[in-house]
């Protein structure tokens, strides 16, 4: 299964990068979202997908064992990453809105001005 998921991640990255390389700012943002998701999957996958138990401590037990359940730590990390991603996404979108309002374009090649003399 790892191979399949790895290829899936690779495909997501490929699509994400392709979107990033577009001139349209909307596609660029789509690309960021795709890559962001793919990155979370990398963390998830490297935590291991052999077990699929929910990382709960049953109401009877005092302890749980990692033998049966998915590693909880990567989940916590991804959770953090998703929320951070959400914050950044919201800001990018606001920025995009503002940019379109100020410039009237969503073509990123219009952005080359500030770099040139």
């Amino acid at each position, binding site marked *: *299964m790892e191979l399949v998921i790895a290829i*899936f*991640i*690779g495909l*997501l990255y490929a699509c994400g990068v*392709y979107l990033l390389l577009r001139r*349209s700012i909307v596609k660029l943002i789509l690309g960021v979202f795709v890559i962001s998701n793919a990155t979370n999957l990398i963390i998830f996958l490297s935590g291991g997908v052999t077990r699929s138990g929910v990382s709960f401590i049953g109401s009877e037990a005092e302890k*749980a064992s990692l033998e049966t359940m998915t590693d909880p730590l990567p989940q916590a990390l991804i959770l953090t990453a998703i929320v951070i991603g959400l914050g950044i996404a919201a800001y990018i*979108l606001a920025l995009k809105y*503002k940019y379109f309002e100020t410039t009237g374009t969503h073509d990123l090649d219009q952005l080359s001005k500030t770099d040139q003399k």
Partner: protein
Amino acid sequence: MEQLAIVLIGLIFLMGLMVPLLRPLFKNYTGRILALVPFALFGALTILFFTLPDQTSRIIETGFGFLPEMQFTFRIDGVSLIFGMMVSGIGGLVLGYSSFYMAKYAGRTKFYFFLVLFMGAMLGLVFADNLLALFIFWELTSITSFFLIGFDHDKEKPRQASLQALLLTAFGGLCLLFAVILIGNLAGTYSLSELYDKGFRFGAHSDYHLVFLLVSVAVATKSAQFPFHFWLPGAMNAPTPISAYLHSATMVNAGIFLLLRLNPVLGGTILWKSALILAGGITMFIGAFFALGQKDLKRILAFTTISALGTMVMLIGMNTSASIKAALIFFIVHGLYKGGLFMVAGIIDKNTGTRDIDKLGGLLKTMPITSIAGILALLSMSGLPPMLGFIGKELIYDAKVQIPELSWLVIPLGVAANMMMVAISVLVFYEIFLSRRNKKPIALKQPEKRLPGNFLAGPVALALVGLGLGMAPGWLEDTMANAMYFIQSEVVDIDLALWHGFNQVLLLSIFTVAMGVLIFVFRRPIGKLVRIIIGWTDQYHLPDHFNKLIKNYLSFAGKHTNRIQHGYHRYYLMTFFAATFVLVIYQLFSADDGWFPVKQVSPLQIHVIVVLLVAMMGVIFAIFTKSRISAIISLGVLGYGISVLYMLYGAVDLAITQFLAETVIMVIFVMVIYHLPDFAVLSSKKSRVRDALIAAGVGVMITLIVLKARFINLETPVSEFFAENSFLEGHGRNIVNVILVDFRALDTLGEITVLGLAAAGVFSLLRFDLKDKNTKK
């Protein structure tokens, strides 16, 4: 007395820094009052000069340094005394002289500030015992002289000149720094005294060539040796007192000083001899030659300085007792006459408004005192008795005669250069002080009598010292012997006299003078010839070439910068990915355990694959659709698909969060872009294919990276601890939640901060906008 001398040097620095405070206090007397300190130092050094025992040096530790190895330790021996007395004595005179010369200039505070600091730096340089301290003072002279040369910075020319001077000397300075560190690294000390005591010789070491190259670049740039000589004539853009000081005792002589200082450590090798003699010889010749073709008095003097510096470098290169002795004497000679001549040039310039030798004339009548001071200096320059210059030139010839293996080269070169020097001296003497033929009479701004006495004091004093030392050179002997001991590491008896009897050397001198006069007699045809040659070499006019070099470099850099920083984010991203790709692939290939590990741990699950396929289709649709809304919705498919994937692998919290976040993002996205038109196809097909290839490459890279990880824990994960303690210690059954709010609460805090900042950011971004519109109305 030693301590006093060092304290006085410190005081000079202090005075320099305090000039902005002192000048309003002393007004027009600033220069003269400031001059008191160098004169006091000169006095202290004079006492040392007569009391310093043979073969001894005095080390004064100040106990202060930027770094432990960068101690400001000073060393008083013959060499530093000779240089120090010149620097402080002429420095005092220059300050007094400036008091009058600069009287009407704006920016005098700046002038004195940098001049006094420059003096302090130069003194520090000649007395420094620590090589790093020496370097620091060396750099300070470069910086302060930059400001002095660029004094008149409203004008283009002084700016260019100061830029050239700074770039060249700083380049040399860097070389010196590197050389010093190399020496220190090898010898284990930066202290000159220790180097001398240990008798440390670098000659045989494998790094010697590098060190020598670096040191000689440092010397050549500072002391204006060919081909780095061209900044010096440009430096004349500084006010005349500065020129007088830079040329006579300071700045350009720092290179000479460095050579003398390092002679015991680096000197004496074949490389040393051949390189220095060659560079010095060429410089000596072209300096004199170019001087012959000049019309501006200051330019003439500038080129003769180059020639004189060449002479000194060549003498040091010869590396015999006689040649070093000659170099030392010649340094004194040159400092005295060059300082005097520049000051004379300044007075003439002030009083007549021109420095053109074709326009000047007959000054002996109208400005007799100035003229006599000038004539004495010229005598010294042409090496005629009874001036010290005569002794200097005799010693030089003597040194050249004494090395038969090289005399075939150095004697003709030297004689030629000296001939021209004589010719120049006579020419200047005749044109400025004597001749009145074919010239309009020069109107003086005020008769010489009305010039402030102190204005004339500088050149007169220098001329008299030159004369006095010529008559009684014996005074120099003891200190010279001391200096020789530390330069050549041998005890040499010095016997200086005007008259050495009738010998080969005297014959050479007479021949030189005769030829010089001959050149003078035929000055018109020769002058024409020289100017033709100079005109021809003007296409190699180095200052212009240097400027062109800078310009070319700038356009080169500009072109490449535009290529690198072109402004297209796509290419930036491509570079990022390409570089990462190269690194990753290199790493994967270089690992010895194969680069495509296909190790499956968990079995294939059809329902997961179906989810993945659906998600993937969503993404691909997002790429190709033209409608924004459908692109966003298909992106949502991906998000939800991944959410389902998390769910299938038991990550419930994650699935829920992902679901919520995805929904929120979609909603915002739709809100932001709903009013926009459909996607237009902005890129060409070719670039799309290229992008697709790059994207595929990145995809493959990521897949390989993920696979490379091989999905086995090499170590037990820390989450074991969480699983065990989550309920007992953290009082929660949902381990993920306990991790978030307890075990790793700080992460969550950061996360919330990001969210809060984002919210505030969005708010201020949008509100700012509203306000903007309001103000527009």
